[in-house]
């Protein structure tokens, strides 16, 4: 992406996010928009790993959950200030991701998928069974998010916070993708040995992007713990991981704005199709299959390619 189109994209997103609340008739819609922002932030991070660096993770809901529970437990049970708990959660998740990344990212394809799947499931089981700390299946409440005497109240406050964070995340992600670091990530996706022989330490970059995407998920999780009235283990389970990957794949791999579109679309979908609630996994599976068959590059890159063909 050239410098100009990056600013154009960021500007368009800023205007859209600023104008959106006017179009939302009540707090129910604002709530959906906030949830879409949460998912979009995680997906922009996950897309760095999956879309740009070409490494799959089927366990990212685990990192989201760890961040969320770190915040909930530290604030609720130990009385930590929410911001400190958020940073502690991010540090824990970052260290954990760092520790597991090197052995796990030596694996490729199905094996990497299985390993990350296992990590996600382990985290989910621990959250479910350590009821003394986490509240088990009943969940735990983190209370409102506050910094000093300032307290975040109501959906609209949350919307502005999350929209601002989404914008910041997109800015940082596009910066990274366009830098020598980002080129190294994309290069190791294209050919690991090809990247190595011009000096790219592929193992180091894979670990780095894994940690970055995990920390982004953790920070989103920490905030989500305060946003949701009751944090339950379903937010950290396997199904949530699949949902996140589907958002990235559907929106468009290696497209930051695709990840946002994918997250927004798949957050809204269950709201629109409430009648089909029990069939949500089936619909998600259908979308995944349809994407792979009909537009393997994902929605946004496919549409962009169509436009470029019409206007040569």
């Amino acid at each position, binding site marked *: 992406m050239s410098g100009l189109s990056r600013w154009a994209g960021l500007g368009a997103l800023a205007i859209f996010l600023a104008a959106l609340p006017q179009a939302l008739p009540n707090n129910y819609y604002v709530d959906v928009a906030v949830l879409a922002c949460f998912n979009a932030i995680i997906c922009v991070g996950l897309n760095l790993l999956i879309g740009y660096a070409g490494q799959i993770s089927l366990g990212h809901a685990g990192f989201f959950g760890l961040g969320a529970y770190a915040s909930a437990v530290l604030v609720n049970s130990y009385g930590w200030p929410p911001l400190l708990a958020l940073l502690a959660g991010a540090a824990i998740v970052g260290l954990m991701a760092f520790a597991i990344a090197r052995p796990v990212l030596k694996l490729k394809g199905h094996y990497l998928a299985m390993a990350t799947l296992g990590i996600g499931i382990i985290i989910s089981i621990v959250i479910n069974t350590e009821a003394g700390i986490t509240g088990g299946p009943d969940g735990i409440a983190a209370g409102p998010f506050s910094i000093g005497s300032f307290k975040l109240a109501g959906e609209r406050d949350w919307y502005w916070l999350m929209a601002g964070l989404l914008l910041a995340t997109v800015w*940082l992600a596009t910066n990274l993708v366009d*830098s*020598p*670091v980002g080129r190294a990530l*994309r290069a190791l996706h294209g050919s690991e040995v*090809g990247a190595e*022989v*011009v*000096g790219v*330490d592929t193992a180091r970059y894979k670990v780095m992007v894994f940690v970055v995407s995990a920390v982004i998920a953790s920070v989103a999780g920490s905030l989500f713990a305060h946003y949701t009235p009751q944090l339950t283990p379903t937010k950290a389970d396997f199904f949530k991981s699949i949902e996140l990957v589907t958002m990235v794949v559907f929106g468009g791999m290696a497209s930051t704005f695709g990840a946002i579109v994918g997250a927004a679309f798949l957050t809204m979908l269950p709201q629109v199709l409430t009648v089909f609630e029990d069939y949500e996994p089936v619909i998600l599976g259908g979308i995944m299959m349809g994407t792979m068959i009909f537009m393997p590059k994902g929605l946004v890159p496919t549409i962009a390619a169509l436009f470029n063909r019409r206007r040569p």
Partner: protein
Amino acid sequence: MTLLRVEHLNKEFGGVHAVSDLAFTINPGTIHSIIGPNGAGKTTLFNLITGVYTPSSGSILFNDVPTAGKAPYQLAEDGMSRTFQNLQIFFNMPAIENVMVGRHLHLDRRFLPSLLRLPGIAKGDAQAREKSTELMRFVGLEAYLKADADAMPYGALKRLEIARALAAEPKLLLLDEPAAGLNATESREIDEVIVKVAKSGVTVVLVEHDMKMVMGISDHILVLDYGKKLAEGTPDQVRNNPDVIKAYLGGGAA
């Protein structure tokens, strides 16, 4: 003074001796060709030199420093770069960015400045783009400056790999069959590029089947057969060596 010294080098795959007890040296500033029939161990040798494979035994010294235990990216830091017989292009990237990846070692690649796109990063990127454009012109790819790598023909991709390798500013450039799959005109153009590279002070080692190219531009030729050194010397010495003729044309021809 030698740039590369290979001593008693062995590589076995199961029971197969792909390279056995090989020794040779490469002097700086020369074009050095490695030839031999298919399966002679040429590409295996390249993979051993560049750290993609680990030798079963023996040693390789680059600038008098053993390369043992170093990963390919570390050898690239020491000044080694290569191309591949089976292309290792980044097909997910535009052509110019393929070459820009070659500038990796010469750019600021710290995480935080990249994340915040500090002015130094943007400036370094602009310079890398300029340098890469220059290199694409140098290898004859000016028509593909705006192309995506996955939209380029085979011959152009071969050159793109050379441009990427050159972008790293190596002391030693290893080219694995740079002329494979190219027509006669394209091969002569690659000839010129290789000679120009060597003249600029880069030592070139190439594996090649195009004998016209090998005999025309090499200062020194190493002939391999079944992983062993069959002959070594100037193009004329090798051309007239009875063992070489036998290996290439069969026993009856000599």
